[in-house]
């Protein structure tokens, strides 16, 4: 099992979320995610035996109870019960009979976050949560891809064909 701690640029990540606001906005003010909602870093854990990837988002402040927001055959996402911040992304790489092969774990994780954003925007609009998910997506895409790519290149991921 390989674990890697990755630092992120919180200021840069926050600017990515400024467009994610479904509500009206005044021209004279700017609402943006507070530093509380921007992760400080990522902890990427890769199990090359089970082909699982887990990404933990590190935030400043106290811990909080978590709930599962997304749980399908491949990906599980845990968010804060009250804050709705993404805390954990888990990709189960073991093949389940009948499922499609997972060619690109990073792509699967990004797709899961996109699905969560879509669900949030349309079912329970929450600009704060939506902004956090956009930030998390950017953090994973910009920072975690190296760790995931280098680890999965050594495993059997590289031998599977991309199904998507």
């Amino acid at each position, binding site marked *: 099992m390989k674990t890697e701690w990755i630092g992120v640029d*919180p*200021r840069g990540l*926050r600017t990515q979320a400024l467009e994610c606001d479904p509500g009206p906005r005044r021209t*004279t*003010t*700017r*609402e*943006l*995610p*507070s*530093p*509380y*909602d921007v992760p400080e870093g990522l902890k990427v854990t890769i199990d090359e035996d089970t082909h699982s990837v887990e990404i933990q988002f590190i935030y*400043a*402040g*106290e*811990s*909080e*109870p978590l709930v599962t927001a997304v749980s399908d055959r491949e990906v599980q996402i845990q968010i*804060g*019960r*009250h*804050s709705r*911040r993404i805390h954990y992304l888990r990709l189960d790489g073991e093949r389940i009979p009948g499922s499609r092969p997972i060619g690109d774990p990073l792509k699967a994780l990004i797709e899961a976050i996109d699905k969560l954003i879509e669900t949030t925007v349309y079912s329970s609009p929450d*600009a*704060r949560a939506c*902004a956090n998910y956009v930030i998390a997506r950017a953090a994973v895409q910009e920072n975690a891809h190296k760790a995931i790519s280098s680890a999965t290149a050594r495993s059997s991921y590289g031998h599977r064909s991309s199904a998507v």
Partner: protein
Amino acid sequence: MRNNHKARNLARGAGTLLVTVFGIALTWLGTASKVDGVLKNAATFLANLFGTDLGGLLFLSALGVGLGELLRVWAGDPKFYQFAEPLLDSLRRYAFAANYLAQDPEHHHRATLFRYRRFKWWVWPWRKWCNPWGAGRGPFSGWLEPVARSGHATKKTRILFLAPDDADHAEGIAGHIWRCKRELSAIVLPNMNSPPTDAQIAEYAEQSWVDVSLIKRYLSKQSSLPGSMAGFPIFKSGQIWGVVVLDSRRQDAIKSPEENFVAIKITQTLMERTVAVHS
């Protein structure tokens, strides 16, 4: 703002004394009422001295303990203010332009901590002549009350902002931040130094999410109004606990969110810890 240290200390001391004295009395009387003999006779004698019976004295003792506890709850944890106010003072040093901090009085640039309270049993001044809490509102409407402020002055304030369940009617910058749970960059407000017109007052009220009557009340008391305001939320275990509002007499004193990122992050982290332990 509950910032009267002497009154709080007095209340806390009195409350502790009441709880101690009546707590001991309650224990003693409770034991005495069950045991026949000298103890019971002494308790009955004491009750007669106060013009009541043993049951009545037990009740009065319980009342004393309750009153003492209420005083202690009202006084709050002194450590909360010991941590919160220096934190706001530090935030103030970093959140405003240094040149203005150096030349202006301290109270021209402030950081205020508002706490969300579901219940507010009394409001003064009344918001409406017939209803202290305002039209269609009551003590359980939800309120944002200032509990700590940077500096040594302008701490005696009765300002109270509505933070109701129908969040569209939340009042003030504090109410807006509470509603959105996000950071608000500096709002530049109209200059109100010279006698403002009705249009300027209306614009100020709209920009700051308050009623025109509140602005007029401040102007009638010749109080100075902020030239710019900003703020961010304070959380406790993921739930919004309150709001910190930065306000300045100048329109360009509050630094940008990018410049204030680290200061706000540290304040949010330490304030969350403070409220988790001492509130």
